Structure formats: structure tokens, C-alpha cells
């Protein structure tokens, strides 16, 4: 497919739009137009149109309230299981929980052994 003058003009329009959207200076825009060797009469109406479109089609910000509410609603759709929540706890919490479990287990075991010894001591006394 050959590169026609129409293709060339389309390329210029695209580059010109990108330049204007990225706040190129008037000099930069003129240099770009000159590099395509297109008559000002031909390109100027498009330049004006791009400028007007740029002024009209401005980004809008949705309200904060809407953005937060929608996210909360979406996130409420799927719930983490208890195990998922445990899995994502920081490592130091995991280590501390491990120590607590071991300490608790040792405490219970010691108390149980203590009770057994006490029982063993008391038994002969009962037999008498």
C-alpha cells in the first residue's frame, strides 16, 4: 500500500494532536507543521478544532464518596476466610503467636505434671 498525501495528512493530525495534548509550545507546533510541508490554510481549521476539543473534553473526577462506596461494596462481594486473614498477618505476629502457643502448652503441661505429682504424694497418705 502506497503512502498517499492523505496518509501524510492523517499522520500530521495525529502528531499535532499528541503535541497539543502534551502542552507543546506554539513554536514546537509550528515546527511540526513545517516538517510536513502542509499549507497553513489547510491545517489551521483542524488546529482550531483540536484546541476546542481539548477545552471541552476535560477529565472529570468522580466524587470521593462514590469512589469509596463502590470500592467498599465491591470488596464486600468476596470475603476472606479466617485462614486467609491469618496467612496475611506480618511475620512477627506469626512468630509471637508461635511462642504464645508453645508457652501455653508448656504451662498447661507443667501444671498437669504438678497435679500428677501432688496426687502421687497424697495417695500414700490416703491409703494409711
Amino acid at each position, binding site marked *: 500500500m502506497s503512502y498517499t498525501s492523505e496518509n501524510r495528512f492523517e*499522520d500530521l493530525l495525529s502528531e499535532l494532536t499528541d503535541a497539543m495534548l502534551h502542552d507543546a509550545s506554539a513554536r514546537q507546533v509550528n515546527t511540526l507543521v513545517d516538517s510536513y510541508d502542509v499549507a497553513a490554510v489547510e491545517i489551521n481549521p483542524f488546529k482550531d478544532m483540536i484546541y476546542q476539543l481539548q477545552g471541552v473534553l476535560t477529565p472529570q473526577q468522580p466524587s470521593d464518596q462514590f469512589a469509596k462506596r463502590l470500592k467498599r461494596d465491591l470488596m464486600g*462481594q468476596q470475603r476472606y476466610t479466617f485462614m486467609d486473614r491469618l496467612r496475611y498477618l506480618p511475620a512477627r505476629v506469626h512468630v509471637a503467636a508461635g511462642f504464645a502457643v508453645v508457652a501455653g502448652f508448656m504451662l498447661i503441661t507443667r501444671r498437669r505434671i504438678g497435679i500428677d505429682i501432688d496426687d502421687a504424694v497424697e495417695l500414700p497418705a490416703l491409703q494409711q
Partner: protein
Amino acid sequence: MMNIFNRKSKQPNYKDMPDTELVELAKTDQDAFGELYERYMTKIYNYIYYRTSNQHDAEDLTARVFYRAMSHIENYVDKGVPFQAWLYRIAHNLVANWHRDRGRRKIIPLDEFVASSLRSESPDRFAEDEEEREQLLEAIRRLPSERQQLLLLKFVEHKSNAEIGEIMERTEGAIKSLYHRTLITLRDDLQMKQLSRNRNDNPNRTQKKG
């Protein structure tokens, strides 16, 4: 050992992840979907806002886009169509359904808050400028939906022709060509409107000339 204590959490750092990785995670991890939401919510809202012309419907449709994306994300397979293109297609289809269901191709004035955001210049020039802007917006709304989509992606989202091509399933060359034709249509439309307004303003002069 110190590393273990310094490490804050096993939760991945979603902010630095590319979309492809996030999408895979989002299939089972709601926080990953939350990050995708943060990245694209405003873009999708903007796209829908200009297609519906009012805040209420834009919010309603934006919510529907993300509900639909969330419920279908398990079926999303990256076959060369980026996630954002997939989202825009959902939005495009929902807006098309919205127009069809309500039969609303009629012109609706933009919300007051947009109009107020445009009032940046002196009050004297405001009325004239505002009229010109409203005329241009009306001309944009008269365009076929794919041309409106192209303009919004270019001017509101600042997307490149290649990105627009991915979203609209066209080649970059086709996008350039469509853009050229869109500008010509807009220019002609505005000129026609201007001519008919001039005729209405000065009917006697037109009749005398005729």
C-alpha cells in the same frame, strides 16, 4: 532472622505489579481486584460520563462495569487484549445498551458542575464561550458512537493511537484515518449549524439575497 522481623506482611505489593499479574491474582484475591479498581475507575467513569452526559448515570454504569468485571474476571484470558481494553469494551457495551433501552440519543445538557468547571475565564467572555462549547459538545454527541469513543480516548484519556486501536479492535492506521474523518465531520457539522443559525438570525437579509 532480622529480615523476618522487619518484613511487614506477606501481602504482595500490588502497586508495582503489571496488569497481567494483577488480573491473575484478582481471580482469587480481592485486594488485587481493588488495585485494578483504583487504576481504572476514574478512566472508566470519564468515558461513561461523556457518553451519558450526566453524573448519576455515569456513576450507575461505572458501578455496573466493575461488578461485571469482577464476576467475569475468572473467564478473562489475556489473548493479546489488555485488561483495560477489556474493561472499556464492557463499558462500551453497557453504554450502548443504556442508549438503546432509554432511546436517549437526544441532547441532554451537561451537569451544572461540569459547566462550572469550564467557567475559568472572565464573565464577559463566558456566555459566548459557553455557547461555543455547548455547540461542540452537541456536535460530538451527534457523532456515531465509535467516533465519540475515539475522541474520548484521545482527549480525555490521552491514549495513543496504538492503545486506542487495541481497545477498538482496529489497526493504528485505521484509527488515524477515523480520527481525520471525525474532525472533518465535526467541522462540517459546526459550519452547517452556524449557517442555519445565521439564516434564522437574519431571515430578511437571506430572503433579499435569494
